[in-house]
């Protein structure tokens, strides 16, 4: 009845954020993978076909921007959403190459996870 679910990777070093976002997206019928490690995220992004990755900016091994740029080099089709607690965060011009603009930035805490899920669908759909 439905097309193949969107494959999403959630990368966040805050376990509660990671777990709840993963659970919510699963409930919203996404195919969700999750990790709190940037290095593992790079592995997953290299091995698996991920439609969209939700990436926190501050991660332990490397920051989210570096993660996106490195992952983009290997898998240029993957889309990204930056999920950050820093309210004055602006998508840097350097991320434009990976298709990340201000429209791809969601600030923590997301007011509504449903709205965030809609954003993810829209961005993953390439519109």
């Amino acid at each position, binding site marked *: 009845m439905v097309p193949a679910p969107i494959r999403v990777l959630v990368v966040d070093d805050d376990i509660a954020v990671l777990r709840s976002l993963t659970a919510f997206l699963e409930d919203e019928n996404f195919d969700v993978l999750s990790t709190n490690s940037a290095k593992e995220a790079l592995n997953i992004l290299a091995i698996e076909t991920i439609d969209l990755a939700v990436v926190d900016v501050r991660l332990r091994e490397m920051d989210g921007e570096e993660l996106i740029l490195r992952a983009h080099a290997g898998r240029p089709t993957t889309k990204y959403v930056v999920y950050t*607690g*820093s309210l*004055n965060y602006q998508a840097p011009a350097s991320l434009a190459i990976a298709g990340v603009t*201000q429209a791809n930035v969601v600030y923590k805490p997301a007011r*509504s996870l449903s709205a965030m899920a809609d954003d993810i669908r829209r961005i993953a759909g390439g519109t």
Partner: protein
Amino acid sequence: MMKLIQLTMKFKLYGITLACALGLMLVLALGLWCLMTFRVNGPVYQEIEMNQNVVADVLPPPMFIIEAYLIIQEADATKSTTRLKKLQNRFITLEADYHGRYQHWKNSLPENEINKSLLQDSYVPAMRFFDIARDSYFPMRESGQHDAASAILHGALQNAFAEHRQAISKTVELAQTQTAQIEAETARRVTFWIQTMIVISLLSVIALTLLITRMRAIEEAIIQSEKMNTVAGLAAGMAHEINSPLAGVVQSAQVVLNRVSPELAANCSAAEESGTRMECIQSYLTRRGIREMLEGIRASGQRAAEIVASMVSFSQGPGAQADNSVLSELVDHTVELAQNDFDPKRPVDFRSIELVKDYDQKLSKVPCRASEIQQVLLNLLKNAAQAMADRGVRSEPPRITLRTTQIGNTARIEVEDNGPGMPRAMRRRIFEPFFTTRESLGGTGLGLFVSYFIITRNHHGTIAVESIPGVGTKFSLTLPLAGKT
């Protein structure tokens, strides 16, 4: 722009400092000069001293000539030849003494009117007196012509002596007059310079007071700015740190609410696998009020997130572009917003407040983010209106005055109320975050905090407050007119 204001302020301060220093140096120099000029043995003192000496010399008048005159009178009275001879010898000594004295004056006294009177006017008759006495009187007496000699004594000699005395009197008078003049002149000069020094000292003290006042105001502004920047940095850092755990709270609550909903198929199957049904779980949750509590967790988390967000709201990205706005229109529009904005928790009745508008119609358009400036103005208007409730009984009606003016290269907006005013301690804290006087009315205490940064950081302007308890409060905003730096 801010730098430019600071720069001109710096120059002003330097100017005042320089004026103070110059003033004090001038006073010091004048003081020294006065001391040098009017000191004991100084030039003025010596001038007076010299005239006093002349007077002392001639007052009592030179004894030589007076004694000579008395000697001749005594000689005229005596008939003894030995006595006469003795007196004649004494006369010769006196004449020599007089010449000696005359030479001393001639050498030591400078040329001036007094000395001319002394050296010429009195000298000529004196010489005549000595000549007549030496060449006529004493020879006549020697040759026994006592009567003829007496006639000369009472005639030519007496005249010469009287003429000499008159000249001496004139000299004394002249010297005294001149001394009096110099003394008066000196007194006048001393008074003048002392007054000048007092005036310059006073001006310097005024300038110094002005300087100290300005310095203190600047110091206060710098401390304020540093304090606010520290707090803003703290707020930004805290926002970042706290938003992740808040996301954990808010998201988890949302997921839990989602997972107890009967609408989700996965929930129903999980319930059945656990040997129950969603209806039972629903019933349980309702009986125990669990859904409301979960909703409470989400709402509280959300509220905390909103407070954090409003704390850093002024720094959220580039936001709207700056447009050129007509300030009076902006203010008017904000007043309309304030009048129509009805917050049931914080009711404000603008109808009971008189609004006075004093706009500078020539004020050029101001480059600013209109929505942000409106946010600031709305905040100030509401604060002013709400403060009216505490103004007590006063004869004048509640009034808010709105002013726009141009000062140099800045536009200025003033929001002045005649409300209760604030004590100094409160005035110093009003820009701090979470400082509120209306906790019960739901104030968060972030309005002026955010306003401060909208004006200073986003617009490179200034925001200042003046307040007198029992009189009112005035907020002044300045916005640079030239392009942003």
